[in-house]
């Protein structure tokens, strides 16, 4: 490997990301090349300088918990509203059915006791049909 190739591998060498074989080749080259050794030292210096930039960090747990709680409350409220709307629609539908049955019953009563009786849409035990009273 020539110097140009070696230079492209110094960063990976310092990061221990080269295969054992390539790392050995690079180290062998460095033993006899002062220019590449200088480049390696410059990169080590840079890493030392970069390490000076420290950052302090806090704790976000309380914020996370509050946000989750707020979203949970919102989701729970949304679920309740959805369920309420579903039940309202169901009640409206039942009102419609009851009104229809009442209308049918009223017609049957006007037709007299011998007229046909409205049948429930299911069979009761022991009988094939039941009469709505």
């Amino acid at each position: 490997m020539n110097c140009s190739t070696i230079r492209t591998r110094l960063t990976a060498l310092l990061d221990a990301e080269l295969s054992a074989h390539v790392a050995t080749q690079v180290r062998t080259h460095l033993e006899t090349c002062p220019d590449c050794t200088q480049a390696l030292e410059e990169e080590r210096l840079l890493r030392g300088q970069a390490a000076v930039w420290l950052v302090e960090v806090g704790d976000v747990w309380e914020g996370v918990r509050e946000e989750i709680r707020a979203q949970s409350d919102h989701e729970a409220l949304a679920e309740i509203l959805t369920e309420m709307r579903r039940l309202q629609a169901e009640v409206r539908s039942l009102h419609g059915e009851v009104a229809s049955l009442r209308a049918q019953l009223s017609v049957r009563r006007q037709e007299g006791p011998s007229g046909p009786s409205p049948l429930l849409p299911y069979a009761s035990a022991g009988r094939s049909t039941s009469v709505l009273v």
Partner: protein
Amino acid sequence: MDEDILMQRVAEGDMQAFRCLVVAYQPRLLRFARRMLPTDRTFAEDVVQEAFVRLWRARSRYRPEGQLGCFLLRVVRNLCLDAVRDAPPALSLETAEDLPAPGGSLHQQAEARALANAVRRAVQELPELQRSVFVLSHYEGLSYADIARTLECPVGTVASRKRLAVEALRRRLGAWNEGGDKQR
């Protein structure tokens, strides 16, 4: 405790397990966000908080693959990119909490602070992908393979971006070393 077991408990709604995950991962995520965002500490904390809230919301869809750390770093990075794109934050150059650990004489501390600011400026001027790679590799000690998983790019790209970042920083900090940038 194993992160997959913790996540399984989190998926069942266990807040205590979720707290364990937050406590374990937040230091790395906060450091990463702070170095990715050229702004104050609160901005980075908001980003990391949002990442955890998203994890909680997606908890039932989580598939154990032992890559939670990479997943969270990826979410934080994307949120950082969104935040900068939506509202470019003003560069904050001097904040007391960014000072290096105290040590040495006042003169040495001042020198170290000037160098830290020069490094911060140089890192934050890197193109985004180089900056992500450099921060994850140099400051967080991630392997190239883990960085590739986090950034969803080939390992070769990670290696080349790290090298380009080092070259760019060497050029920029070279001026500082020669004394020309110490007054900035």
